[in-house]
């Protein structure tokens, strides 16, 4: 009986916390289904005739966010891919090789994370401006990678350090080179880490606003900036804004669902450290 009471209290608490997080989302869904006039009604109408016009306007027409969605997709995908390609070998060498100045290098990688992003906006703007990389894909991607790489390297290092060294030594004795060992032995065992890295890097690049607003322009416009299509001096089109925001969430939600599965797998792999060990 005691356990039942405890469980129900915990469930109630969890529901409450979940509601705090999910309420804005529910609110957005409702607003996105109303007409602009209905949104302004006070007191708000609980019963209204739902419409999909806002979604149509967000996808096609003068206010469409489709090209911005594409820009975000390009930036986030390339950032994630490059981050993975660079962070895995970097993490491996930090985790396993006897590099000169390894400790210091590890610290500097982390130190870049300690600078408040706000302090970097202007320097980055000036640097990209000098190179002529403002309002370009590669400019945005390079800036995003300065944030995602340190994070990804540290995360991958911790996953790789969990793999027993003997596993690698066994591979060396089996005539595998370092590169083959990394490909066949290490990477398959850090899938969980790779999933987490992918998820975080993609999400951060996708949701980023502060740098996007400074460094992008008319040619390259991430979707976070596109939300301003619906905000003007005269009025804010709340219904269309909500519809656009919901559309912009979809890729992150999909990646989250796919990644979630792998993250759980990654965690259980860590639970039986080394897997093959008794």
């Amino acid at each position, binding site marked *: 009986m005691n356990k039942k009471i405890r469980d129900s209290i915990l469930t109630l608490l969890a529901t409450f916390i979940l509601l705090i997080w999910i309420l804005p989302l529910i609110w957005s869904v409702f607003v996105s289904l109303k007409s602009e006039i209905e949104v302004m009604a006070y007191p708000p109408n609980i019963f209204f005739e739902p419409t999909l016009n806002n979604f149509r306007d967000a996808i096609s027409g003068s206010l469409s966010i489709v090209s911005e969605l594409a820009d975000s997709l390009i930036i986030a995908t390339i950032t994630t891919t490059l981050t993975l390609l660079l962070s895995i070998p970097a993490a491996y060498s930090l985790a396993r090789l006897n590099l000169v100045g390894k400790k210091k290098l590890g610290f500097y990688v982390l130190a870049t994370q300690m600078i408040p992003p706000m302090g970097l906006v202007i320097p980055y703007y000036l640097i990209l401006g000098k190179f002529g990389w403002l309002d370009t894909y590669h400019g945005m991607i390079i800036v995003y990678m300065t944030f995602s790489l340190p994070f990804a390297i540290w995360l991958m290092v911790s996953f790789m350090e969990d793999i027993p060294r003997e596993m690698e*030594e066994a591979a060396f004795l089996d005539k595998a080179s370092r590169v083959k060992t990394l490909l066949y032995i290490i990477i398959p065992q850090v899938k969980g880490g790779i999933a987490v890295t992918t998820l975080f890097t993609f999400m951060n690049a996708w949701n980023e606003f502060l740098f996007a607003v400074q460094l992008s322009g008319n040619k390259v416009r991430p979707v976070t900036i596109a939300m301003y299509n619906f905000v003007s001096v005269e009025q804010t089109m709340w219904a269309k804004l909500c519809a656009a925001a919901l559309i912009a969430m979809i890729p992150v939600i999909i990646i989250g669902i796919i990644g979630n599965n792998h993250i759980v797998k990654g965690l259980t792999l860590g639970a039986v450290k080394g897997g093959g060990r008794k």
Partner: protein
Amino acid sequence: MKQNGKIELRNITKYYGKVKVLDNINLEIKQNEFFAFLGPSGSGKTTTLRILAGLEELDQGKIFFDDLDVTNTSPGSRDIAMVFQSYALYPHMTVYENISFPLKMDGIEKTEISELVKKSATKVKIQHLLERKPGQLSGGQQQRVALARAVVRQPKFFLLDEPLSNLDAKLRLETRVELKNLHKSLNVTTVYVTHDQEEAMTLANRMAVFLKGKIMQVGTPTNIFDNPKTLEVAGFIGNPPMNLIDAEISNKQLIIAGIKIKDYELKETNLKQVVAGIRPTDLNISNEGIPAKLYLTEQLGDSSIMNLIINNKIVKLKTMEKKQYNDGSNMFVKLNPGKIYLFDPKTGLRI
């Protein structure tokens, strides 16, 4: 089957930081020998094995495989297979993939791989487990997979690092016999690291006793058992090991606890104080001899070990006799005079 397989270690010295973990190791292992490194933990036996495998760099010395200097070659080029204490199976691969991995790295064709994997899996009786992952296997099965992965490539040298230590007692005895058989059928030079002297004794053709980073003695198991060269080896080999009792020599007579030992042929020596080593099985309860007090008896089923106090020190006596004595009772002990080993207490060497 590949021929040769001679190993030679010359003046191997290894430091971990400032700690000398291996001190001038010299050793020759013959072709097709089953050679054991025996020693307590921290004695340097595993480090020596890892140096053989090329997994550990050395500070001084040279390694020769078949008279070829391999000191600075990579592990993969040494034609070695190793079974780790933890087995080091690849957890994301099936048993089949695990066993085939060294062949795949060797660039062998798929059809041939499949044949070789099946052959070596059959040899260690795991042919029915090929589709499983290591996590779904018992400790004994994992160990067999590790063995199969090691033998599949038909290496020149076979290194085993405490392969039985993670198995339960019964399985350990069974696997021990199979290891011996495996060695016979493979005919490959095998180096076996263990802290269990029974394993070393039963398996090895020859063995090296490691203590504190040094090789104390090399020889056949019986040779080392019967002729320990130093106090340390004497105090380590045997279960329980030899009793080491302080003794005196006066008038060419050996005196232990104030009692002259009859019929003992003393060799020429100038020493007055010596240490007498005697195996627990070479002591007998008697009506006369060295006075002793029974401290405690350990029953082993077929035999018992009596812990006696002689000269304020515990001396172990192993007997098959079923007669029971009360703890604390006084008695006399006779030594088998032909089985007394004398050591110099200062140098630790056999006299």
